[in-house]
């Protein structure tokens, strides 16, 4: 029997997105991957580096994936008619752009590692464009996860300690918000840890403030659905 995906793709995901051509996996999906990096960075990038898995490296140019990845990384939507001009626009913004090839292991053919740097921080993600514009990011700043960008999501970087998950989820529960999925990973016991919480409805400013001021939380990012 075939592998079953854990989350159902929606009708609008299948019958969409509205996008600039020519390829949903190479143009729309890659633009969304770039956009994920940009949204986590949460500031205008000064450098964007793309390391393409060999099958993607062989095919990306003819599909405009280079325009799309850069376009996403500077914040353009997949249906933005400026995507074909994205590299020129990024150069005008003085963004340093680098493309390279890298074997990313046993992953989907259309996988890319993206490193973006801004004035105050940097973000690294690895993700795949699995078809029809749908993406799966499976690594964020070195932490394993499952990020699809199809719901509002909270990303937490914190110091591993007992009780952290219950404290954070309690704040979300206090808002009567449903958690769709939760992924945790850590680099070492008691050291850097990461939590991704996908929620069914948007979190309030107040909840975010409370989560950020929870002891041992280093950084929190709240992302809307990635368009």
């Amino acid at each position, binding site marked *: 029997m075939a592998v*079953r995906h854990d989350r159902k793709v929606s*009708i609008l995901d*299948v*019958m969409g997105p509205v996008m600039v051509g020519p390829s*949903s996996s190479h143009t729309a999906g890659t633009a969304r991957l770039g956009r994920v990096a940009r949204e986590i960075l949460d500031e205008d990038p000064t450098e964007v580096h793309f390391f393409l898995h060999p099958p993607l490296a062989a095919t990306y140019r*003819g599909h405009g994936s280079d325009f799309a990845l850069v376009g996403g990384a500077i914040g353009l939507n997949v249906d933005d008619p400026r995507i074909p001009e994205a590299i020129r626009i990024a150069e005008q913004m003085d963004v340093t752009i680098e493309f390279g090839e890298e074997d990313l292991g046993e992953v*989907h053919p*259309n996988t890319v590692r993206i490193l973006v740097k801004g004035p105050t921080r940097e973000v690294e993600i690895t993700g795949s464009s699995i*078809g029809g514009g749908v993406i799966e990011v499976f690594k964020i700043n070195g932490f394993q996860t499952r990020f699809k960008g199809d719901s509002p999501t909270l990303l937490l970087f914190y110091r591993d300690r007992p009780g952290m998950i219950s404290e954070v989820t309690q704040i979300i529960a206090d808002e009567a918000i449903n958690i769709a999925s939760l992924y945790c990973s850590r680099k070492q016991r008691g050291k850097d840890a990461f939590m991704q919480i996908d929620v069914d409805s948007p979190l309030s400013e107040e909840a975010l403030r409370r989560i950020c001021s929870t002891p041992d939380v280093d950084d929190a990012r709240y992302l809307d659905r990635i368009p």
Partner: protein
Amino acid sequence: MIESFKQLEEIAANRDLADVFLETDEQEHAVPAEQIVEALRKRRAVMRDCVERGKSSGESMGRLVGHEAELLNKAFQEGRTFLDPLTVKAELYALAVMGENSRMGVIVAAPTAGAGGVVPGMLLALEEERHIEPERTVRALVVAGGIGSIIALSANISGAAGGCQNEVGVASSMGAGGVAYMMGGSTRQCIHAAALALKNTLGLVCDPVGGLVEVPCVKRNALFAVHGLTAAQLALAGVESVIPMDEIVEAMVRIGRSLPRGLRETAEGGLATTDTGTAIAKRLKEEANRRRAEKAAERERAAQERKEHAHDHS
């Protein structure tokens, strides 16, 4: 959550298929049904615009295609086509969308961009030729999308994962279900329309010349739009697929896995490595290298100018 076509047939046996898909999608993704319908109304409009724009010519990015829709449209307007208008329009609209796609125009991925001509080709041609209300087309998009979402539970919808059967094959299957729905077919008939269309695309490889979504993709969309229409015709007459839809999807996944890498969008096999395909790829590569060299030189010049400029001010 509807996990299989077998389950879908049970749940939706005596119900409107679009309603069932809207209800389950609303539950699963917390998006109100009316919002889904409204989004699809807009997408139908984007498809319609795309067809209009695409009827005129324009070269594709790789300059391999771009005039197909104009040629067929001209023949149609001048009465030089021999097929019935529905079939001609299905081909024409699919070509128009794919032309726009190859020029980096705005399109609807349905389910992918490379297969994005099939569904609008079928549905918009049928809407026009049979004077069907646009709102019914929107509901047929719900049905087509719903069928695709069940397929996507077990299959990655991309040529890289399983060849063109996973893209154009799935698109013609979704479209066939949508057409059967528009023509008043039962849930069972819609599923069999989808099954007949998908079954007869199994094994279709993804071997794009030069790695571009141009050859054979553009014309293939037109031909498989017609394929989907004929599948719906059979199903509406009561013809059924012996192999159930769920098992066809399973077969598609297995076939996709056993396809060699060279036939999964890498441009390292099939049509891409014919004499003509190889020559085209070589030309594209030379052109890309030349453009890159020009760009690098331009950047160098700009950097030099900035340096001199800074020097003047120091």
